[in-house]
């Protein structure tokens, strides 16, 4: 082993060191003022490190092939850093119920680091360790609030997470039994040679793994924790879960199913294509139907994130049928979804900090009370619906296009279901937008969010518009990331 191995996981090491520093600074000074700038500084350093890795086109494996770095891992790492930075910069107003600021920022950084390692892992043991580190940190983050609701959310997340981890481990054990190795490269070779006698074991293994990873991606039927946890956790934690955790979940799903189970040309790929196809259709439909009935915006966004996970899973199904556009479409969707969701949730934080509740009716007449905030929120809602000229439209277009390109009859039907669901989702997204734009405000007093919130909201809005009109930079990045995956 040499120092290059540590260079490969450099950004994660920077973040972990930053987490320890934040915790120590919080202990030593006892003042809240110093931890947030320190966390931002750490994220900037990690972003710089990842950017130099990208510029030097770093690639290779280390730690006995358990950890690798390529364009895919760097894409995911930068995406995660941007999401975490947005939470750190604009999350402060949403932390009124969280007294332990030092712990919050330290855990946030540690969770980001372990998700970056998760994307880099190429070995079942490394994947499991990284995934569980991510989860363990997030259980605490969810339960950090000083009220019964946060504790309940934390416990629910912990219990469902523990079950998901056990199920995932069963799947891993079966894969290890089939391949005789924990390395994804060996496993993909073994799966490619699947004969009739081991076929059932492979199918059971990937169903179990899909269940374990599905918990992270929050797709039906592994979604039961989402609304309660999203509502109970402090809103900045909810943002982090809905954007970062979901991105990490889909990244590891791509890695496991595309690299590990051999992409679109193995004897079992038709099976897992259908599995993800069914999960996608059910996720979209259930998520949208449940979201329509919500009056709490955090629950609404929770169900909406389940439905969006269904949209991304259409891309996963396409990957399995050998669609070459699939992985890039999924990665592009994750990027645009992060920008959109950050914008929406940070607007929710700003309104929640002002109004003190997350009820839908408190958004009435927001346009007259805080025009900038209202416009960004409406833009993000349009992007979540998937209307042009926003990034959400192109993301859906690419994912659905990749499914059609897969060339199977049932995939076309899946896209039909997805388009129908888009119409369904328009009902509640646009109802929310109408409340913001047209309704009489309950309390007409105007207000201005803090400068940091405004900055992140502007960045999110620009991202949603920019990638909706000029998607090429992000598409190219997603394509080269996907190429590294194959």
């Amino acid at each position, binding site marked *: *082993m040499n120092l290059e191995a540590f260079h490969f996981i450099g950004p994660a090491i920077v973040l972990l060191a930053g987490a*320890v520093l934040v*915790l*120590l600074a919080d*202990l030593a000074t006892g003042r809240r003022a110093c931890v947030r700038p320190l966390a931002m500084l750490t994220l900037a350093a990690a972003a710089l490190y990842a950017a130099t890795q990208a510029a030097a086109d770093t690639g290779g494996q280390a730690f006995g092939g358990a950890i690798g770095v390529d364009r895919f891992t760097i894409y995911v790492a930068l995406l995660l850093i941007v999401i975490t930075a947005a939470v750190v910069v604009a999350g402060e107003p949403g932390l009124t119920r969280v007294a332990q600021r030092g712990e919050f920022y330290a855990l946030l950084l540690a969770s980001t680091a372990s998700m970056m390692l998760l994307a880099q892992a190429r070995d079942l043991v490394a994947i499991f360790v990284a995934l569980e580190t991510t989860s363990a940190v997030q259980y605490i983050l969810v339960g950090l609030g000083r009220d019964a609701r946060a504790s309940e959310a934390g416990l629910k997340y912990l219990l469902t997470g523990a079950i998901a981890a056990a199920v995932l481990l069963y799947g891993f054990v079966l894969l290890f*039994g089939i391949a005789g190795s924990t390395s994804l490269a060996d496993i993909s070779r073994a799966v490619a040679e699947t004969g009739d*006698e*081991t076929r*059932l*074991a492979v199918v059971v293994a990937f169903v179990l793994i899909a269940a374990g990873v599905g918990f992270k991606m929050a797709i039906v039927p592994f979604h039961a924790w989402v609304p309660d946890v999203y509502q109970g956790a402090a809103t900045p934690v909810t943002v982090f879960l809905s954007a970062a955790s979901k991105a990490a979940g889909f990244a590891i799903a791509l890695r496991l199913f595309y690299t590990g189970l051999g992409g679109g040309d193995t004897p079992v790929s038709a099976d897992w294509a259908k599995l993800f196809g069914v999960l996608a259709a059910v996720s979209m439909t259930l998520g949208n139907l449940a979201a329509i009935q919500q009056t709490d915006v955090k629950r609404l966004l929770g169900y909406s994130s389940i439905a969006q996970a269904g949209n991304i899973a259409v891309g996963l199904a396409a990957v399995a049928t050998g669609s070459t556009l699939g992985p890039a479409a999924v990665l592009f969707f994750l990027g645009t979804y992060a920008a959109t969701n950050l914008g929406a949730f940070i607007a929710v934080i700003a309104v929640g900090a002002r109004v003190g509740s997350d009820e839908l009716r408190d958004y009435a007449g927001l346009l007259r009370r805080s025009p900038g905030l209202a416009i960004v929120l409406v833009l993000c809602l349009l992007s979540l619906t998937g209307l042009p000229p926003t990034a959400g439209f192109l993301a859906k277009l690419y994912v659905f296009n990749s499914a059609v390109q897969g060339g199977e009859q049932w995939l076309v039907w899946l896209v039909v279901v997805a388009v129908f669901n888009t119409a369904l989702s328009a009902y509640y997204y646009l109802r929310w937008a109408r409340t913001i734009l047209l309704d009489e405000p309950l309390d007409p007093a105007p207000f201005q969010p803090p400068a940091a919130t405004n900055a992140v909201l502007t960045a999110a809005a620009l991202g949603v518009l920019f990638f909706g009109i000029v998607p090429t930079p992000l598409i190219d990045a997603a394509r080269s990331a996907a190429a590294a995956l194959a």
Partner: protein
Amino acid sequence: MSPLDQLFSNYLPVFLGTGIGAILVISALVGSRLLAPYSEERNKGTTYECGMLPIRRASTNVGMRFYLYAILFIVFDVEAVFIFPWALSYLAVGPQAYWEMVVFVGILAVGLAYAWKKGALRWQ
């Protein structure tokens, strides 16, 4: 016989053992219920049929403090478990092993400092 069937057939004794165990327990319970004389006497329901009446609940609360100590103990327990194999392979790996252990113990020390500062070590 395919390799997979072979794998599962290894577990046949386990399944048999589970089945026989379950049958034994169920037949003992059902048999004693059917064969033994059964009295509806109220005193049969008390903890001791004769002697003292029990006071208070049998389950008591355990202080949170013990929980904190248990967690801290596990931290150092795990640390010790890691240090033993490290000590054995120390000479083979060289200076890198030393620094890795310094980092590992350092992170745990930060955890201890955290617990200390937050008053977890104070017995109040």
